[in-house]
């Protein structure tokens, strides 16, 4: 066995941080993605502009720059607001940007923009006759979203979704820069202290690969689920 020189438990904790961070960011990204896709497809001129502005800015600026901007800039911005509240109304509050929350929000915000494009394309790929049938049978927009639009959109969205998730997972490695102790940071610290980079970085690479493989398997299952009714006839006929 590799001798992790006592860093084993910390590395494992770091791996948990990575997984939690990635999953929570994914949830934020999916919600933001669905909202933005709806905004961009809506008849409202304002919503459309806001959605476009958001995706244009996020997709045009490097992830790392956005992360630093939101983390440091976010703290300064919050401080400005709390200072103003104190000066103006005597309300004394201090909000410290928590690294973990900052990481989730930043990664969620970045990938929300990519998800938005994935979802928008997927929603537009749903056959309009399917929607019309829902309308003709008295479905409200809400019911139609739940019963028809969403399940039919998913099979178009999943390949892009899975791709975004893989990139998102690896983007979490950037949060070590804003001081969050994920497994990459633990490995970097351990490598520096022991001068044995391979001992720590190879396990980290393996853990990433492991998470990626499990995700691939889950996405393959989901793809199969949402493809029911669309694939080749012999696939579902026994």
């Amino acid at each position: 066995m590799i001798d992790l020189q006592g860093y084993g438990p910390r590395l494992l904790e770091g791996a948990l941080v990575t997984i939690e961070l990635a999953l929570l960011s994914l949830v934020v990204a999916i919600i933001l993605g669905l909202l933005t896709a709806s905004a961009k497809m809506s008849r409202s001129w304002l919503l459309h502009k806001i959605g476009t502005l958001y995706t244009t800015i996020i997709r045009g600026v490097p992830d790392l720059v956005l992360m630093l901007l939101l983390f440091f800039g976010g703290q300064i911005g919050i401080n400005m607001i709390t200072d103003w509240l104190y000066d103006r109304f005597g309300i004394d509050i201090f909000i410290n940007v928590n690294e973990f929350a900052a990481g989730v929000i930043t990664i969620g915000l970045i990938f929300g923009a990519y998800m938005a494009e994935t979802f928008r394309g997927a929603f537009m790929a749903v056959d309009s006759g399917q929607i019309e049938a829902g309308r003709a049978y008295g479905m409200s927009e809400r019911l139609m979203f739940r019963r028809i639009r969403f399940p039919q959109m998913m099979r178009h969205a999943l390949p892009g979704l899975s791709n975004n998730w893989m990139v998102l997972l690896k983007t979490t490695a950037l949060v070590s820069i804003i001081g969050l102790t994920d497994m990459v940071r633990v490995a970097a610290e351990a490598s520096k202290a022991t001068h044995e980079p391979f001992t720590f970085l190879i396990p980290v690479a393996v853990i990433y690969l492991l998470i990626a493989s499990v995700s691939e398997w889950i996405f393959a299952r989901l793809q199969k689920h949402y493809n029911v009714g669309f694939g080749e006839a012999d696939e579902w006929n026994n």
Partner: protein
Amino acid sequence: MVDTPLPLEVRNLKKRFGDNEVLKGLSLQAHQGDVITLIGASGSGKSTFLRCMNLLEQPNEGELIVHGETIRFKETRQGREPADWQQVVNMRAKLSMVFQNFNLWAHMTLLENVIEAPVHVLKKPRKEAVEHGRALLDRVGLLDRADYYPAQMSGGQQQRGAIARALAMDPEVMLFDEPTSALDPELVGDVLKVMRDLAKEGRTMIVVTHEMAFAKDVSSQVMYLHEGMVEEAGPPAEVLGNPRSERLKQFLAPKH
């Protein structure tokens, strides 16, 4: 005055796409058990007229009265819109539509398609909906296909399935939008037979069709549309048997 309200009445309906007026004031009265067929060349507005009846298209002018209830509209900057979408939803549940391209929901089995709106729109208990749904599938000869997905069935089977889905709503009026136009010729007969049976049992139906034999044998009233206006209307024996206008004579003449 009649005691029971008409299942469907349309008064002076007009529809424009941009500057192009495609429906120029159409009216229709469907009594209980009527089968009204709308015929006309493509572009005559017959499908648009049908789609206005359940507001898949928004008419610019005119009144729509479903089972005595007048649909309320309001003027907005984008044009006229229904004032109360809940009313529209309730109205649509009373008029079920059969589409040219079937439009069965592709991600659901046939039985799931049939019970979907009864369970989720009409809030019928699932068990009851399934029982009723299976009986309807039996009626259209598709009980053995209940667990098939639409893509696994022929066009004719899908369309009969779509008719079962429409019947599952216990509709006041059934709207058929060229139900046999997308079918291979050998599959048309089965669908028409189901529709003839429905007419016989007294269903109120409005049918856009190119099937003149069906129009002649089954309908109580035929409306011939031309450029968004009714050119001739009346019992089929009159309209189809003894057309007055030159245009309708041309339309009915055997094509070579």
